[in-house]
């Protein structure tokens, strides 16, 4: 397929997934704060910190509070990772490849975009939780429509590759929110509040019910294990890496266990690292440090995918 088209379908999926995960971010924080003692209700800076854009935020908004942070992450059109910006970018990408994706996919992206745009003009703060639920559902609808109406061809695999790399990265960041929230009050570790927080976190990753089926008891180590290493839960990092790798190999037709380009090598190495690591080793290394490492590697994979498939060198390939 055309390099430009592969690029667009990859980013279309990344942006939709990113919008969904921003909604999860804000949601996890809202949930955590609702269940927290009053002293913690101003924990909004950590949320921006996990996006990596705290400096940018402070330049524009000053000190973080709920209204400012939610506006920044949700409706700020000048912030490129806000939900509305993601949807705008997703829609632009979809518009440039409408003949590749199914009409149903386009309709869903377009409807999704218009829904967020309408919400950004209304903005009743009281209805925000239902708004984030709608964003999540719209994203799920997009994925479902994609799976059910588009041939699972090269383009579809580029889309899934983009979506899962984005999701792996964002699950890492959602876990990190807890880390930042905990920082000021280490005393809470192991208390009832702590357990409530972990539950809220699992719920925000749509993982609470599935976690219960697997682990029953809530413990920080088990939650980390579930969200990082579980091979069956579709939002766990390892699940994402396995599926992303599968799509990458479908695209290149390389044999499993080998690599023909840097994207395959970096992704394969990260996936096999998670195959054999234990959660105890992760905790020992430091959960935050480990999540940071995963995010760095995923960034590399992203660059390498772009160099391998989207920026086709003329000289190299004229055969």
């Amino acid at each position: 397929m055309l390099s430009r088209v592969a690029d667009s379908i990859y980013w279309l999926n990344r942006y939709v997934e990113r919008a969904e995960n921003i909604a999860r971010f804000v949601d996890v924080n809202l949930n955590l704060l609702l269940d927290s003692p009053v002293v913690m209700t101003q924990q909004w800076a950590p949320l921006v910190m996990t996006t990596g854009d705290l400096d940018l935020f402070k330049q524009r908004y000053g000190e973080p509070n709920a209204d400012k942070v939610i506006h920044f992450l949700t409706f700020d059109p000048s912030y490129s990772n806000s939900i509305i910006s993601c949807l705008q970018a997703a829609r632009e990408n979809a518009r440039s490849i409408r003949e590749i994706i199914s009409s149903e996919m386009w309709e869903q992206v377009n409807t999704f975009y218009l829904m967020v745009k309408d919400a950004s003009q209304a903005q009743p703060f009281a209805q925000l939780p239902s708004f984030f639920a709608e964003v999540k559902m719209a994203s799920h609808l997009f994925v479902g429509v994609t799976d059910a109406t588009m041939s699972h061809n090269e383009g579809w695999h580029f889309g899934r590759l983009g979506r899962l790399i984005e999701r792996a990265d964002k699950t890492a960041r959602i876990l990190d929110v807890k880390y930042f929230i905990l920082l000021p009050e280490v005393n809470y570790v192991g208390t009832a509040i702590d357990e409530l927080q972990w539950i809220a976190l699992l719920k925000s990753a749509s993982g609470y019910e599935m976690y219960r089926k697997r682990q029953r008891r809530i413990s920080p180590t088990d939650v980390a294990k579930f969200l990082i290493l579980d091979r069956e839960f579709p939002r766990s990092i390892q699940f994402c890496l396995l599926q992303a790798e599968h799509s990458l190999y479908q695209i290149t037709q390389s044999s499993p266990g080998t690599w023909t380009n840097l994207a395959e090598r970096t992704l394969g190495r990260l996936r096999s690292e998670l195959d054999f690591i234990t959660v105890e080793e992760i905790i020992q290394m430091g959960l935050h440090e480990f999540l940071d490492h995963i995010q760095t590697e995923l960034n590399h994979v992203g660059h390498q995918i772009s160099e391998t498939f989207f920026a086709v060198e003329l000289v190299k390939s004229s055969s």
Partner: protein
Amino acid sequence: MQFDQYNPGDFYDELFVTKGQPRPEAALLIERINSLSIEELQQRQQAAQNALFKLGVTFNVYSDNQGTERILPFDIIPRILSNQEWAWLERGLKQRIHALNLFLTDIYSDQKILKDSIIPRALIESASGFLKACIGLTPPQGIWCHVTGTDLVRDRNGQWYVLEDNLRCPSGVSYVLENRRVMKTTFPQVFGRMNIAPVDDYASQLLDALLNLAPPGLPEPTVVVLTPGMYNSAYFEHSFLAQQMGVELVEGRDLVVADGYLQMRTTKGLKRVDVIYRRIDDDFIDPLTFRADSMLGVPGLMDVYRAGRLAIANAPGTGVADDKVIYSYVPQMIRYYLGEDQILPNVPTFLCWESEQQKHVLNNLDQLVVKAAGESGGYGMLVGPHATPEQRAEFAGKIQTNPRNYIAQPTLCLSRVPTLFGDRFEGCHVDLRPYILYGKEIYVNPGGLTRVALRRGSLVVNSSQGGGSKDTWIVD
């Protein structure tokens, strides 16, 4: 009874013979509409518009740098034509396209029609659409105009005329297909009871016409649609047609000439392209041959075309045949190449480069429509009766400075179709653009795009000037 108050007045109305008396082919629809409440009609109108917006059937507004998209306003009352009348129009269109294609073949090779003094040589050589670079070229299968959108109008007496031939990159067919899709959900019962000619095979016919041009012996020729990009006003249509045909939509930056072929950049390296359906004007397709500043085309594309390794639809050079001065010679072409009389008449046209006719035009500017010969889309045009004295003086000056570039025609009183305005119907002027494909045979998509002037009393149907569209039904 929604139509009780509707009066066609002193106009040719496409749905009514006189007040209260529908044309036979429209009777069923009128009966159905009369059975609905006005609120219900308004609701369906709104639902249809919403559906089009949701489907993204939009055009971009050039002047608006926000990248705003708008839908072409859509009216749910269709224009209806009887089968018999359509059969006659179809014959006329096929005859016309046949003759125009023979003209293009001739004008870029032997130029017999010039040698026999049917058309003055000076007119051809001064036509902006005449491309010297195409002289001596024979496009695959001898076909030049693969896709044509011919504008037809009907005057106060019900007489049909050809207003202009669009042989370069006519747009609008996507509205025909999507309007129909929406209408089926708007009036499902009517579709069940009336025998309305389907339009859906357009994409298959277009693909066949394009595949017909591929070099012989290729098991799977690659066909692409070439678009200027997503900011072009007709981008939706480019992408829609590529999708409906299942071919790649490419931009100039996706293409490169390598190893003597046109190739596209893919995730697995370069891939050869055999046929392009281009939606970019001649001037822009190859900066090495035509406009050097074009960023939209592909350097070297014309060399590949000349070498016979690429088919281009429409063929470069077709613009000479829709020059508005050349247009006035189409009846002569039909006689010259086919030995037949024209079926569809032209609008009487005054050519300003002839001094007698120019004098007549200048003396009657307040009654005529003046058009620039090489323009389209309603640009470079003066509607005399609606113009100010200053505008008329300005055009008089232009005509005298560059007489070759102007023609004038009487102001036609276009036929009308009832159109929903708020809570009642008003007659609005319409034209009709059928789409004609030249593949193995000539095919005319049944119906076409009915464009409607939505500003009260306006005769201008172009989307840039407040025009909208209607579905067009050919019925038994």
